[in-house]
């Protein structure tokens, strides 16, 4: 588990010259670019432990998530080797878990269903459930090798969100489907600047992306007939392909008991153009910054971090989504606990390092829309990583 203390990292102290250089780098990278609007700002790949800490991962990230969060973190692993292994995580929303529990043999709800012996009652209950609670599920997998100078990896993420509304915008009952499908490969490089507490990193990425979204009025026969045509469904999940770059910088000021970290990150530097789909044309350049303070002993640490995403308002990200804050606590280098605020809601989780197997869980709430409280999803995540 790459949540260690970096305690093999050398001591540095900041000087005014260092900060001037950093400010210069910041000014160059923060120049906004006018590009087309993409649909979604949510991360394409995010580690469970980082989610648990509110998604504030610019200054400290976990395993393969490092190359997406901030590749400049790579040199601060404390050793040459950082991670070789595979990961798998599952996401499911709380309401679906709760409903599944009612279907288990022996559950009170299940007994009352079977008690009346009515199939109509059960199906009516199912319809009521579908129209009262959304369904969200997803998976994320990766395989990667990372060291202090870079890494290579491949990932896949799939997520579907199904929401039925008794009163849709048109007034009729409707079902809204939102999907996310991201696959790709990454090649990262990173280096520390000699004689300075500064590192720079870059991640080149090849992406296949689809973000289908449709709303179907269930009473509209034309809308329903439309999706009986396989080509309409194929159009809905048409994948776009594109190449892009993420660039990051990190200032690491280390003390005997307390460290400071300042990060700057540019996602999709210059914009990532896509082809092959009418749905996704471009991911806009997004500039983010983060700051953190770490209190540590030899093997324990508390890492308090705050990130500010989309500083140039490329996506007009509202403040509650742009601000991510959280804490990671590392105990004895094999247990990690985390809590934070993700999309303006509390998040928490834990991870345990069993040498070659790392198991993590998290619970958080994500806001699907840009309006606070409009379409929240309570999500459970379980993560399994095999590697070292």
């Amino acid at each position, binding site marked *: 588990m790459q949540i260690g203390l970096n305690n093999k990292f050398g001591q540095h102290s900041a000087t005014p010259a260092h900060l001037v250089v950093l400010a210069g780098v910041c000014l160059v990278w923060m120049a906004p670019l006018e590009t087309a609007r993409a649909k979604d700002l949510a991360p394409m790949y995010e580690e469970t432990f980082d989610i648990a800490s509110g998604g504030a991962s610019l200054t400290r990230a976990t395993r393969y998530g490092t190359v997406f969060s901030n590749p400049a973190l790579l040199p601060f692993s404390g050793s040459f080797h950082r991670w070789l292994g595979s990961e798998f995580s599952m996401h499911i929303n709380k309401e679906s878990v709760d409903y599944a529990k009612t279907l288990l043999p022996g559950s009170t709800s299940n007994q009352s269903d079977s008690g009346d012996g009515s199939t109509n009652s059960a199906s009516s209950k199912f319809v009521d459930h579908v129209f009262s609670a959304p369904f969200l599920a997803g998976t994320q997998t990766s395989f990667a090798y990372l060291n202090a100078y870079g890494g290579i990896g491949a990932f896949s993420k799939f997520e579907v969100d199904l929401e039925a509304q008794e009163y849709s*915008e*048109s007034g009729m*009952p409707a079902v809204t489907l939102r999907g996310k499908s991201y696959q790709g490969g990454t090649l990262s490089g990173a280096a520390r600047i000699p004689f300075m507490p500064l590192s720079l990193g870059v991640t080149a990425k090849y992406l296949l992306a689809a973000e289908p979204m449709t709303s179907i009025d269930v009473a509209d026969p034309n*809308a329903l007939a439309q999706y009986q045509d396989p080509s309409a469904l194929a159009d809905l999940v048409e994948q776009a392909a594109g190449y892009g770059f993420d660039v990051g910088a990190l200032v690491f000021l280390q003390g005997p008991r307390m460290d400071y970290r300042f990060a700057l990150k540019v996602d999709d530097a210059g914009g990532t153009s896509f082809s092959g789909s009418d749905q996704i044309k471009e991911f806009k350049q997004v500039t983010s910054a983060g700051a953190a303070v770490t209190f540590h002993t030899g093997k324990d640490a508390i890492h308090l971090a705050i990130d500010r995403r989309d500083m140039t308002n490329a996506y007009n990200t509202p403040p*509650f989504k742009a601000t991510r804050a959280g804490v990671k*606590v590392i*105990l004895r280098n094999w247990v990690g606990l985390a809590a934070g605020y993700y*999309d303006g809601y509390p998040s928490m989780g834990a991870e345990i390092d069993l040498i070659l197997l790392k198991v993590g869980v998290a619970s958080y709430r994500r806001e699907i829309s840009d309006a*606070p409280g409009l379409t929240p999803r309570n999500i459970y995540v379980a993560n399994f990583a095999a590697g070292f």
Partner: protein
Amino acid sequence: MPKSAQSKSMTCSTMMAMLVSVNLTGCGTKNLGSCPGINPLVKCTELTADEKIRIALDDGDLDTARSLLEEAIAAEPENYNRYPLLAAVYSGLAGFRLLNAISGASSTSGSTSVTSALDAFLPDPASMSRSDYNARIDLMGLAVSTIQALPASFLAESGTDKYAASAAQQLPLYLSAHAAMYMKLFTFNFDSGTSDLSQLTSMSATDADAIIAILTTAAAQGGTFGDLAASTLASINSGGGNNLDNLANFLGNSGS
């Protein structure tokens, strides 16, 4: 473990416990970005009128949704996309759930009148007073008049515009439900809470004319419920008398 290391570990654990406690106390449904702001670090995000309406609807708070929609329509009367939603909210407040009617539409295939087709989806009069039921009939009337307030040019786009299509679908359904509820008023004894055809004597010629007019308008809309209204009207008019006698005969024979 050395005493100092143990102490440091304890300190870490204590700090984590405190942070998790802070996190847990923040648990709830309120977002840090909700207004009025609750955190100086996160500027609150004001919701638009449509977002407030959506939250009220998702919370099942139809009264709030109604108020917000009425305000929004008063502020922007030419934003016709909100009218079908307000009509649906009125019908929901009347106790007529579109979802039930649509999911049970297949069960109407054998019906020849709006009373038998919609009876299962109308509010149960046994659970309310006559004045409460009258109020619900008025709400269903508001649902109808909200759709009827839309200009013909908007409804003409029902082939391509989902809001116009929704309005065109809702109108015959609400008209039929309005007529069925109106008729129920004269076949139900609200004092005893049972069906009672002797209540038909309370129906006036004005009431009968109003019900026939609603059914006539519904029949003109076509579609499943328009056709049902037409067949209901044909059954009523087969009596050959005036509207009051014909309707009383129809309701008496159908045992509604």
